[in-house]
Structures are given as structure tokens and as C-alpha cells.
């Protein structure tokens, strides 16, 4: 039986083959023991501070917002080692892997950010990493594939299905089913079966905790809204977790509208999806009327996922968080604006959150403080953006 709640309302659960239940129970047990172990916590904190570079900065934008009533802050996860928030929870789970006496790590990756974070943590901690990546993504994200291999990880292209993130998750789960004795599945987002959504949230919650402390220091009050992009939802849940019990703080999750939510080419699982089970959790998913999973789409590979973490589904249903969406074009516009106005190149994922925050800023009629979780930096996206924008960015 489980020691923690496995569900968020009706969402979440453990919809996996019976074979994987012992491994998930072992993980829950290790997580709970580690939580109360000062030695584990000291090592995790030390890695976050001295290796990854926490706390990350909080930057007040200077030129981006024209509405004088609005202060727009950026939580700078882009400055974290690895280039995105992903490193936080990967370090935590890598330490859990060692604690469980396992020597190998299985991971999936879409854009390659979680793969890179996994590769660096495994290099540091002496774990053997194998990372499943859709064959199409391997082609599209060649620099990240090279980064992973450079740090000693084995990258395994997945040909089955659509050759993207969802298929990489399938393959990672299959590998885990055969190798759970010696391998930990280091899931990369706040989705999947229990206890992953809880562990990933807890190992990212310092994003919101630091935000609270930093904004109290700078402004002497809580923000009016925190805004984060949502694919699986790990950076968003990390930002939201510490504010869920603060009703004055709006929690805004931004899903990828791709070419528009009225088309088939989007990844807005909460906005346009229906309830169902994918990758171990009951949540909002993109599916056809028979229950076959549909392929998602976004300009941002990190948001290109046809499901969402179960806690987001719950926060949406109870009305505690609001979930909106932003198109490729709006995100690309925000991407360029932040570069030009503030000298920061954001990840395309984070550009979605920024784009929506800019709309909020334009419309604000009262004094408003908004914090955007700038979850990653955009270096990884340059090749893709050059292909899309060409020389339009000149001048």
C-alpha cells in the first residue's frame, strides 16, 4: 500500500503494469526516508548551491514592459547549470538512485534538456545513463545529443510511433520493466505514475520558495501572479507549489497553442484535451474518441507532449490555477523581445510564459507584480529559430 496520497482528486494514480509496482513502492519509500535524512538533504542542498548555482537570480525587467503600473520579474532558472530548471530534480533523483543501491539510470528526453541534465548528474555521481529520445528529436536536437554523449550518456533513438517524446517515454518504461532491479527510471517531468509527480514537485519547489523570499525582499509583498509554461508541468509546479496556499497569488500555467488551439497542431492538454490515462496517470490528454493518443505539436520541443502532470489537471478543475495557451508566433515574438529589450535569450518553452505575462502586463489597470518563471535559456533553440525566422531578426 502507499504511504503518500497517490492522487490529486481523481487525477494521478499508478496505471502501470503490475510488474512495476514494486519499483514504484521502493521509490516512494526511498523518497520518504531521504526527506527526513539530514545527510541526504545536506548533500542535495550542497549540489544545488555549489554545483548547480542556486539560488538563481530574480531579475526585474527594465525595458520590456511599457505599462508603468506593472513590475515584471524573471525567475532566472535559465542561469542554472545545464541551462534549465531540469537540473534541480535530476540531482535529487540521482541521489535517490544511489540511495536505492542502483547503478543505472534510464531517462527519456524530448528537446534534450532533461537528457542533458540527466547526463550531467550521472557523470558527476558515477551513474550509467541511457537516454531514450525520439528519432525525429535526435535529428532536430543534434547539439544536445552531442552534449549527452560528451558527458558519457548513451543516447538511444526511438523509431516507434511518432518518434518523439511520448514514444521515448514508452520505451523508457519498457526498459524499466526489464531492468528495475539495477536501474532507476529518472522521469523528467511532473507527470507519470505516483510517486513521480510528487517527487518532481518537491525537488523543484525551491523555485517558488526562492521566488517568495526574493520578492518579499525586493517588494515587501507577495506577487499578484506567477506565470510558467506547462508541457508536462515540472517548472510550473515548482513555481506554484509554495504559493498554492496563498489565494492572493494568481497561478497561471501557459500551454502551447502551436498553430492555434482550433487546429490539430497544438499541445494544450488541459485547454483542449479530455480525461484519460497516459504514461501511468489519469489526467488531461489529447486523444481521439476511441482513446487513441493523438500527437501533440509545438514549436517548442519541451512542450510537445500530449498529456499534463496530474496535479495541474486538479488545480485547473478546482479553479486554483488558470491554464491558458500561447501560439508559436506569440512565443517567437516574446523570444525576440526579451533578447532585444533585456539582453536575455529565453528558451522557446519559457517564451510561452513570457508572452502571456506580457499580455497581462498590457491589460493591467492596477499596480501589479508578475513573476515569470524563465525556466531555461534559449541557446538550444537557436538553430531552430534561425530556420523559422531567417534574416527577419536583422536590424
Amino acid at each position, binding site marked *: *500500500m*502507499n504511504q503518500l496520497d*497517490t492522487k490529486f482528486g481523481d487525477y494521478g*494514480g*499508478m*496505471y*502501470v*503494469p*503490475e*510488474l*512495476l*509496482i*514494486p519499483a514504484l513502492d521502493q521509490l516512494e519509500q526511498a523518497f520518504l526516508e531521504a526527506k527526513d535524512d539530514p545527510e541526504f538533504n545536506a548533500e542535495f542542498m550542497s549540489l544545488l548551491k555549489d554545483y548547480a548555482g542556486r539560488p538563481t537570480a530574480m531579475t526585474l525587467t527594465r525595458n520590456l514592459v511599457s505599462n508603468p503600473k506593472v513590475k515584471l520579474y524573471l525567475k532566472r532558472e535559465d542561469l542554472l547549470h545545464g541551462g534549465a530548471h531540469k537540473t534541480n530534480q535530476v540531482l535529487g533523483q540521482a541521489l535517490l538512485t544511489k540511495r536505492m543501491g542502483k547503478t543505472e539510470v534510464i531517462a527519456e528526453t524530448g528537446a534534450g534538456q532533461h537528457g542533458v541534465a540527466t547526463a550531467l548528474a550521472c557523470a558527476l555521481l558515477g551513474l550509467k545513463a541511457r537516454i531514450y529520445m525520439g528519432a525525429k528529436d535526435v535529428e532536430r536536437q543534434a547539439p544536445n545529443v552531442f552534449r549527452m554523449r560528451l558527458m558519457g550518456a548513451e543516447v538511444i533513438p526511438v523509431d*516507434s*510511433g511518432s518518434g518523439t517524446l*511520448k*514514444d521515448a517515454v*514508452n520505451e523508457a*518504461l*519498457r526498459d524499466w*520493466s*526489464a*531492468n*528495475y532491479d539495477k536501474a532507476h527510471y529518472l522521469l523528467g517531468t511532473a507527470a507519470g505514475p505516483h510517486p513521480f509527480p510528487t517527487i518532481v514537485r518537491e525537488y523543484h519547489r525551491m523555485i517558488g520558495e526562492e521566488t517568495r523570499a526574493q520578492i518579499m525582499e525586493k517588494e515587501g509583498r507577495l506577487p499578484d501572479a506567477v506565470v510558467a509554461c506547462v508541457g508536462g508541468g515540472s517548472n510550473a509546479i515548482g513555481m506554484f507549489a509554495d504559493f498554492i496556499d496563498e489565494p492572493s497569488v494568481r497561478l497561471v500555467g501557459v500551454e502551447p497553442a502551436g498553430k492555434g488551439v482550433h487546429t490539430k497542431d497544438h499541445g494544450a492538454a488541459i485547454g483542449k484535451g479530455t*480525461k*484519460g*490515462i*497516459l*504514461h*501511468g496517470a*489519469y489526467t488531461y*490528454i489529447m*486523444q481521439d*474518441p*476511441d*482513446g*487513441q*493518443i493523438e500527437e501533440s505539436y509545438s514549436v517548442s520541443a519541451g512542450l510537445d507532449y500530449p498529456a499534463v502532470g496530474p496535479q495541474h489537471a486538479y488545480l485547473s478543475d478546482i479553479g486554483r490555477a488558470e491554464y491558458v495557451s500561447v501560439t508559436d508566433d506569440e512565443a517567437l515574438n516574446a523570444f525576440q523581445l526579451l533578447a532585444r529589450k533585456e539582453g536575455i535569450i529565453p528558451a522557446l518553452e519559457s517564451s510561452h510564459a513570457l508572452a502571456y505575462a506580457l499580455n497581462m502586463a498590457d491589460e493591467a489597470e492596477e499596480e501589479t507584480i508578475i513573476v515569470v518563471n524563465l525556466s531555461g535559456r534559449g541557446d538550444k533553440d537557436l538553430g531552430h529559430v534561425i530556420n523559422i525566422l531567417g534574416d527577419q531578426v536583422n536590424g
Partner: protein
Amino acid sequence: MDRYAEMFARLDEQNAGAFVPFVMIGDPDIETSEKIITQLIESGADALELGIPFSDPVADGPTIQKASIRALGSGVTPTACFELLSRIRAKYPEIPVGLLLYSNLVLAKGMDTFYAQAEDAGVDSILIADVPIREAKRFIDTANSHGIKQILIAPPNATDATFKAIGELSSGYTYLLGRAGVTGAETAATMPAASLIERLTSVNAAPPLLGFGISNPAQVKHAIESGAAGAISGSATVNIIASHLDDVPAMLNALGTFVSEMKAATGK
């Protein structure tokens, strides 16, 4: 009518175990699939385990994944699968027919609607690959209300608590996993399963059929010698389909030979 109980009683009289082939319904298309399923029955299969194709089959290895892709590629829907099952049932009123599928297909239609469709199509049992015992209660309750047996999986790594739950909740048969991992003939079942079978017997579980990695008559013989009530062979059966896609008569012929040879190994 409890077709599994009748089958096991008949096999007991014959002093034999069950041979249960698995194929994906609609692989490679509905019309051929109907011929395939008919051939399996005519060649001596004691029961059938049939898949409904799903886009994301995480418990399946490459062979059965490809079968799903072929079936989905030819436009097969759950509704078409049920129509085919109804035709099979009309022709063969006695053979136990089990479905093996994934939870999202069940939920998409509404759980009750799905089980009602299965009942109407003459399905005897449903095994949902991604519903472990911990999540199974509402599925079992719905199955019971439609006279369908919810099949539970006994994996080699299960705890005593899991075995106890299987004892309390299983009906029809128990799907005993021959090894860890996903479906596939590439990795053989790990024998003997005898100790697992003893544990199942001690908790009064429904009769165990051994599956995962069963691809030849020697393994069927060994499974039954170890105390299993029979053996399920999926990927090996599907491999025969996959390697004869351009010659259906040869495919049916090869399937017939395979099933007869596997069945011939079930004598005790």
C-alpha cells in the same frame, strides 16, 4: 456460462493443459484477422487472448507494437473489433475469449459502456495491461456487473500482499508472467515457474496460465509440468503473421501448424 471453468474441467478430464494463442484483432486488417482467428480455433486453440490495438502499448515489445501499428494503420477501431468478436462468438459458442488491452481504450468509451460492449460481443474476460491490482477495484466491479472476468497479472516480483489480493480477487484465470520485461519472443520465459505457481495455489488464485516469452512446444510442456494450467503465446504467434503478410494462405497454414504443435505439447 463460465467458459473458462468448462474449459479447465474438460482439460482436466483429458489430462491436458490449455494452449492459448494471442493475436491483435485487426492485424493486419479486419478481414484477414477474422481468418486468422478462425484458423487458431480450428487448429486446436483451447482459448483465445485477443488484443485491441492501442497507440501507446507500454507493456509490449516490438512484435506486438508493430501488430498494433498495422491494425491501426488499416483503420481498425474498438467498435470494429467488437463486431468481429460477435461474429466469432456466433460461430464458436464455447471457446473462452479474453481481451488484452490498455486502460485508456476502456475509459474513452466510459467504463460501463465498454464492458457492456464486451459482454454483448461474447467476451469472457478482460485483462488491462496498465491496471495493477491497486487500481483495479472499479474495473473489477464493472466487470462483475457485466458477467466478465477481470484477469489479474501475477508477476515474478510480486509481494505476498499482491499474491493474497490475487487470491481474493482473481477469476477466470491468472496471467502468470514468465519473466520481467515486456512481451516478446526474443527473451525466453524463466523456468521454472513452479514456486510462483505454488504461491498462487496456496492463496486459491484462479488457474495460472503462463505467458511472456513462450514461443515453442518445449516451453509449453515445461510450463504445464511446472504446474501451470496452460500457456499463452503472443509474440511467436504474431511473428508468423508478420512474416507472411504478402501471402495469407501461407500465413494461415503456418499458424495452423504452429497451434497444432503447441497444443500437442499440452499433455500431462
